[in-house]
């Protein structure tokens, strides 16, 4: 008698230990992070910012809704749908209703063509024919301006077209065309971005970088030599901070500045060719915000230094092939302006470039600063901006946004512009105005180096540079500093805070998970089918195994028992 009891005891103990092991396994498995989405893509959030407390951009970051396409029935409720919209399918009505009038939407995922991808810079002269490319760019510029200047109460993300997304979109379109938009009950795709509520960036900094090439002192202090400043603003602003690489505005200007610094460092390293001018190089930040960084940088100069600046040349958007414009704030009759413009136009003529002069008066009471040189002019320093743009941009326009990628920048144009500026500067420094000499002639050791320009243009075109999101010791700023330090001396950084007018919010790059989901009805149906299957199986087994003779009585017994119990 004792033996079976012992065995039973042992068995129970075994079971109990089993249960604890199973429980442990369950706990471990439950901790496994579930991330098996059919597609995971990088998405770039529409910028969120305030100007003097007025909200702009997309105010929400997290996303968890079913996907829909542009084929939705007009007038349907999309407040729980994420619309996936390729750029080429964008139409006027959609923009007007959902972006400008602010109709509710679960979310918006805008698909951009690959040519706008920052990493796409290798395939210059790509596969899309040029007229389509230009149209796309125009469309994107318009859309970007509208997005930036409206306050949107749903999450807006940008992604790039790729095969996975295309298949997902094709599926969704098929669903939508069949008149079955995806909801919780019909299945479809679910788009999920998990992101905490965007937080304000606390005191975003801007960093200016400056460096000197001291001229040859005749006698006395080098400070008494006149100074020529070459300035370019390096940061950008765009609808998606993670994609604002600004190849033309103002990547090309930065490249130009670095190349000019390199060219003159060659000349200034030899005492025989060192000019009688100090050269001041400034890479300024805060360009999109009325050249806030430039203003701070100039304010930090002492009076004597500021007065020693003969003139400043600001480089801006040098990458287009439509000729260059010299923008000034003083009337063209002014002696300095005349001298700068004539110096440039002389060289331009020799290079076969077109250079025009544009005069725009400063309105001191207006806080808008359209060109970088205006910050100099406000402090009574003669300055001019050399730019490919013919008209002054509005606030946050032409600041290196989504459409400003490597694809649309001509390397040859940058080389020509650099040569133009460097040559005219050199002629001025060495007193060779009006003479037909070629200091930076091609195929000499002093020639403009296209591969240097190409490699820096590549780096700039792959690095998003929206100032509030660049930390003080960002690798890119360090790289700029190091590069400048290779050519010029006394390179230092100046950190400052962006003026209080702008507030920015974080969470600019996220991952989007796309799940193919089944509907609740499907699972209900499945449960029904399974239930009937198990019941059938049960009856079948009962019939076949428990007595072949009285099948029917076996089959009837349970209800009769129940009846008795009742």
């Amino acid at each position, binding site marked *: 008698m004792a033996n079976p009891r012992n065995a039973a005891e042992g068995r129970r103990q075994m079971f109990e230990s089993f249960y604890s092991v199973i429980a442990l396994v369950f706990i471990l498995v439950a901790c496994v992070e579930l991330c*098996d989405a059919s597609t995971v893509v990088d998405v770039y959030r529409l910028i969120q910012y305030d100007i003097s407390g007025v909200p702009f951009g997309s105010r929400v970051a997290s996303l968890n809704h079913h996907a829909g396409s542009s084929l939705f029935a007009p007038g349907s409720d999309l407040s729980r749908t994420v619309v996936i919209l390729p750029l080429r399918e964008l139409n006027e009505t959609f923009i007007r209703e959902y972006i400008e009038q602010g109709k509710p939407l679960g979310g918006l995922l805008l698909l951009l063509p690959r040519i706008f991808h920052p990493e796409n810079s290798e395939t210059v002269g790509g596969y899309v024919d040029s007229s389509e490319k230009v149209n796309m760019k125009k469309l994107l510029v318009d859309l970007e301006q509208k997005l930036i200047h409206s306050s949107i109460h749903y999450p807006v993300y940008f992604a790039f077209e790729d095969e996975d997304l295309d298949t997902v979109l094709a599926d969704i379109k098929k669903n939508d065309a069949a008149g079955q938009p995806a909801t919780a009950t019909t299945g479809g795709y679910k788009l999920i971005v998990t992101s905490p509520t965007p937080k304000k960036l606390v005191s975003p900094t801007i960093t200016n970088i400056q460096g000197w090439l001291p001229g040859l002192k005749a006698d006395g202090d080098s400070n008494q030599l006149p100074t020529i400043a070459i300035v370019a603003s390096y940061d950008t602003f765009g609808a998606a901070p993670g994609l604002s690489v600004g190849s033309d505005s103002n990547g090309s200007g930065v490249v130009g500045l670095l190349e000019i610094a390199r060219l003159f460092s060659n000349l200034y390293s030899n005492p025989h060719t060192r000019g009688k001018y100090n050269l001041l190089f400034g890479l300024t930040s805060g360009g999109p915000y009325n050249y806030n960084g430039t203003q701070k940088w100039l304010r930090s100069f002492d009076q004597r230094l500021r007065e020693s600046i003969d003139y400043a040349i600001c480089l801006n958007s040098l990458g287009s092939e439509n000729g260059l414009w010299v923008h000034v704030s003083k009337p063209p009759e002014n002696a300095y302006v005349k001298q700068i413009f004539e110096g440039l136009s002389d060289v331009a003529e020799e290079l076969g470039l077109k250079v025009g002069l544009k005069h725009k008066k400063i309105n001191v009471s207006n806080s808008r600063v359209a060109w970088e040189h205006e910050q100099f002019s406000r402090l009574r320093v003669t300055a001019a901006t050399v730019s490919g743009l013919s008209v002054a941009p509005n606030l946050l326009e032409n600041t290196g946004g989504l459409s400003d990628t490597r694809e649309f920048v001509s390397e040859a144009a940058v080389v020509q512009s650099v040569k133009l500026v460097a040559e005219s500067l050199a002629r001025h420094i060495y007193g060779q105005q009006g003479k037909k000499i070629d200091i930076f002639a091609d195929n000499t050791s002093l020639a403009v180096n296209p591969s240097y320009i190409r490699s820096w243009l590549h780096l700039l075109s792959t690095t998003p540079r929206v100032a509030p999101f660049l930390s003080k010791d960002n690798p890119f700023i360090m790289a700029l500093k190091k590069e400048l330090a290779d050519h010029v001396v006394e390179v230092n950084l100046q950190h400052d805070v962006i003026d209080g007018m702008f507030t920015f919010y974080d969470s600019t790059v996220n991952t989007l998970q796309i799940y193919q989901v089944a509907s609740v009805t499907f699972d209900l149906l*499945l*449960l029904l089918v399974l239930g009937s299957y198990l019941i059938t199986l049960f009856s079948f087994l009962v019939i076949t195994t428990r007595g072949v003779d009285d099948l029917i009585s076996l089959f009837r017994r349970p209800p009769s028992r129940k009846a008795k119990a009742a």
Partner: protein
Amino acid sequence: MTMFHFFNCAILTFGPHAVYYSATPLSEYDTLGTSVKTAVVYLGTALVKLVCLATFLKVSESDNFDPSQELLKALIGFIDVAGLYFALTQLTHRNISQNHKFQAVGLGWAFADSVLHRLAPLWVGARGLEFTWEYILQGLEANANLMLSLSLAALGSLMWLRKNKPKTLIPIIYACAVIVATMPSITSYLRWGLKWHLPEVVGFQLLTSLTMALVSWQLFAACQKPSSA
């Protein structure tokens, strides 16, 4: 909703085992102990199989079908038969009839297989948001596997435990046993060698296991008759 789907798949995967236990006389004779012992034997067998696979098999970098490797795998697969033999003959069972014994063994065997191979993927996969047919198919596969295990146990008990079986049926029993025992290798060949899709493979499995179950049922019944007569 995802939990819902998980429960659905779990019902499909493990439900038939429970139904089988409760519907047949197994529950009346309290044969759970036998099933649990068999499950432990299955665990041991799986371990031995793993060790053998790790020792003798090369790690292939590609997904290609290598006949010699597959043959080796099939041979190692026969360790299952040895495990089942051990479970049927060597385990001291309480006094239950052969008829119930093989069912309990087959059930324990299939259940252990399902828990070991399907529970973890199910828990990790079916709870996710992403919908695939995979886990439903896997549940169907578990059903097919239950039938196969029961047939194999039935045939095994005929081979090893029953002494007075009709002479004419013996070759058929052995042939059927070989077919059932090689079934996992055949399905793996279909899957990886002929690149069948999962639904087709599962369909094939269901069909063959159903056939084999019917055949072995008939064989068992045929052997039963002379003894009862």
